[in-house]
């Protein structure tokens, strides 16, 4: 067991847990943040993508010990009081969602990109979601939603 504290969606949280627990399980089981999905458990599908210290990472590959003093942002943390952010709105508008299981991970990957680069080229958007698999929609509408968001330049860093 270890004691850890980290920032989760803008709030400081404390937790005592086994060192070898995965971040995805901590999020889903201890904090009921089930928006983060699991598709493969070994870092290949990107459904579990969250933002850790401003970088998109697969939460199925992060262990509890690595969380100490980190900043974690999940899909639940990117909208405020139930109001969607521009990227989420654009996913809706451009029809970038089908079954939706890959969607939170896609949004977090693009969100992380936009945090560090608010005017990415299409190639950079593609690279950002190259590790996110979608079995339903094809990817075109996802790029459209990301492009439109980058063009509006309105994403704010909620984790600050």
């Amino acid at each position: 067991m270890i004691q850890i504290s980290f920032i989760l969606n803008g709030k400081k949280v404390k937790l005592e847990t086994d060192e070898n627990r995965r971040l995805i399980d901590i999020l889903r089981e201890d904090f009921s943040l089930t928006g983060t999905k699991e598709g493969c458990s070994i870092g290949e599908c990107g459904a579990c993508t969250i933002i850790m210290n401003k970088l998109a990472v697969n939460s199925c590959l992060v262990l509890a010990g690595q969380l100490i003093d980190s900043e974690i942002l999940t899909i639940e943390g990117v909208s405020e009081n139930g109001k969607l952010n521009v990227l989420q709105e654009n996913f809706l508008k451009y029809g970038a969602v089908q079954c939706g299981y890959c969607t939170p991970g896609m949004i977090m990957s693009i969100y992380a990109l936009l945090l560090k680069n608010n005017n990415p080229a299409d190639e950079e958007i593609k690279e950002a979601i190259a590790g996110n698999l979608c079995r339903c929609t094809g990817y075109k509408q996802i790029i459209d939603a990301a492009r439109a968001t980058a063009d509006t330049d309105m994403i704010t860093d909620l984790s600050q």
Partner: protein
Amino acid sequence: MSTKFIKSKFWVEDIKEEMMAEVPISVVEPWQKDKELKYVGKPESRKDAYDKVSGTAEYTFDKSFSQIAVAKTLRSPYPNAVIKKIDVSEAIKNKNVLGILTPDNCKDNDWYSGTSKLLDKKVRYNGDEIACIVAETEQDAEEALRLIKIEYEILPHVTDLEKAKLDTAAKINDHELKPREYNRGNLEEGLKEADIIVEDKFSTSVAVHNPLEPHCSVVKWDGEKLLVFDSTQGIWAVRDTVASQLGIPASNVRVIKKYMGGGFGGKLECGKYTVMAALLSKKIGRPVKIVLDRKEMNQAVGNRPSSVQELKIGAKKDGSITAISHNAYGTAGAFPGSAGCSWPARSLYKCPNMKLVDTTYYINAGKDRPFRAPGHVQGTFAFESIIDEAAEKLGMDPIEFRVKNFTAVDPDWNGPYTSKLLREAYIAGADKIRWKENRKKAGFGGGIVKTGYGMASQIWWGGGAPPSYAILKLNWDGSAELVSGTQDIGTGTYTILAQIVAEVLEIPTRKINVVLGDTGVCPFGAMSGGSMTAPSVGPAARDAAEKMLSKLKSAAAAILELSEDKLEYSEGVFSSKDDRSKTADFSKLFGHFREGVLVTQGAREANPEGYAINTFGAQFAKVDVNTLTGKVCVKHVVAAHDIGRVLNRKTLNNQFHGGIMMGLGFALLEERVIDNYTGKLLTTNLLDYKLPTIIETPEIDVIIVSEEDNKVNNIGAKGIGEPAMIPTAGAIANAVYNAIGVRIKDLPITPDKVLNALASKNN
């Protein structure tokens, strides 16, 4: 009586279904072509999109209860064995282990058409279920599984299709798989008449559905009643299987599916895991969750069978096809299934003489399940490849050759189609990709990267059929709820049903709530597969809405003391045609009712007699082939289809893009690999089993050449799930040939095959 029973006949995959269905006696007229629709056809955003982009959508995978326990399955490490002894004494020592099912303590229930048991002492593939343990946590369950000691008698196995064909192959299943044969005219005569004959052999790999949400169930008993949350495309199939497996009344089982992360056919039937979870849950008196991991997903819950296809086509100089021979075989795993794939050869073109044989062989591998366009994806690839070969031999353009052999009637029984705009699809697609200008002779281009163009056609059913029902509840405030026992597996069913009701009642879609996927509250609705959902359930929703409108009209007439023909309706208000001041809106009407909600039930009408109902289309691909690396890069896909009326352009685009990407994966990447020596599955994860990513995504254009098909049903729409995917692989394969001048006949077209083909061409 406003309904009657009929014998409903329709095709699901290549099986002709016949079942009794209750259909409305008076049939709602389809919307006319020139009628301007306000909601149907509009690119409305998905009703469920908020939940999905915000992360609040609750999938079966997310479902939990207090006191929930976790179950895990022990699967056979061997491809063929008999279990002599199971010793669970060590496994159950841990106090966190709550219960265990083995063939020794499990009901002797039949599975796979009686050729296996729920838990069988005979295991027939690497991944076959042996035992299931429920424990406090997943980790406890997994550790306990490792402590089960089993004595196996290991038997010889066969996982190689060519070996499975031999008489000497080890016997896998007692149930005999008979070849299916179809004959028309006289093949030999047809070949004699031909001026040219082309002959070739093609093959395709086993592909696996791999939806992103794993197969999973959460079960909870409430006394004798069982609640099942399941990631399923067929709530009724799950309910009925669970009830009969457990020997309890179907009314005691309630199956709920709210959101699910894709299915593609793999989730049409009830899995063993659901039944095992229910048995364990009963045993321990706690809710149980069972989730398959990616390895299990690739082993045990279905796949598209492999195929080897020997094709022969004879044609006259003028291009008319005189004979088709298709001899196909493949494997559907260790249990009764079908690898048949000759349907495109049978139905795409006019041809008086043919012989088609489909044979399925057992191997020691997981059983097949329907996978987006069963038989048609692999069949179309091979058949449309040889069609191109014949066109080339005749010196004809591939499209010209196809148009020459166009059939205006179903070649099987000469019945007319409700609609067939295949030629229009050829024209629109060719135009978009600039076929005439761009396509050169095969292998013509110079340089390291060679560009090629190819196309392929598509036929599928997809007209839908009864039985499907919908209940509509209209509330005093003008909001409504539509309830139907179908499911939205990501395709957009929630949204299109709301649009249909909105169209009839002229109320905005945001006021319409759609409830699906709950056997406890919904009337029966179609399974979500086979491109059946929209054309089966959509008309039932419209029927319910039209009945509601009639009901309201008769109420308005009574309240306003006017005859019904003197009334007009617009956006929630009835008014007198003669005296505009006489009106009744919903609140006025409901002010006179005792109840605050009115209810109607609609049903899917019968299909028209004497017609063949199909979807058609053509896809065109532009590819770049790097002759140094062997890599194929798809640059552009144009899809042009006849699918009746577009219900929602946004969800339609998703379906087409997704289908094309899945077709691209099948053409270039996806392949289940089993090590023939050990019989073990090698592609157990998403790195080894490659799905297409954004990197492989080409430019995609989707053209719908149909406005509506008003003979098919009251919404004029046909399904699009399968049509979207069927021709993609064939179009890509033909484009690769056009680029490099040598044909790759075995899917997926991986770089090694391209390089080998180029080397053999140069020698």
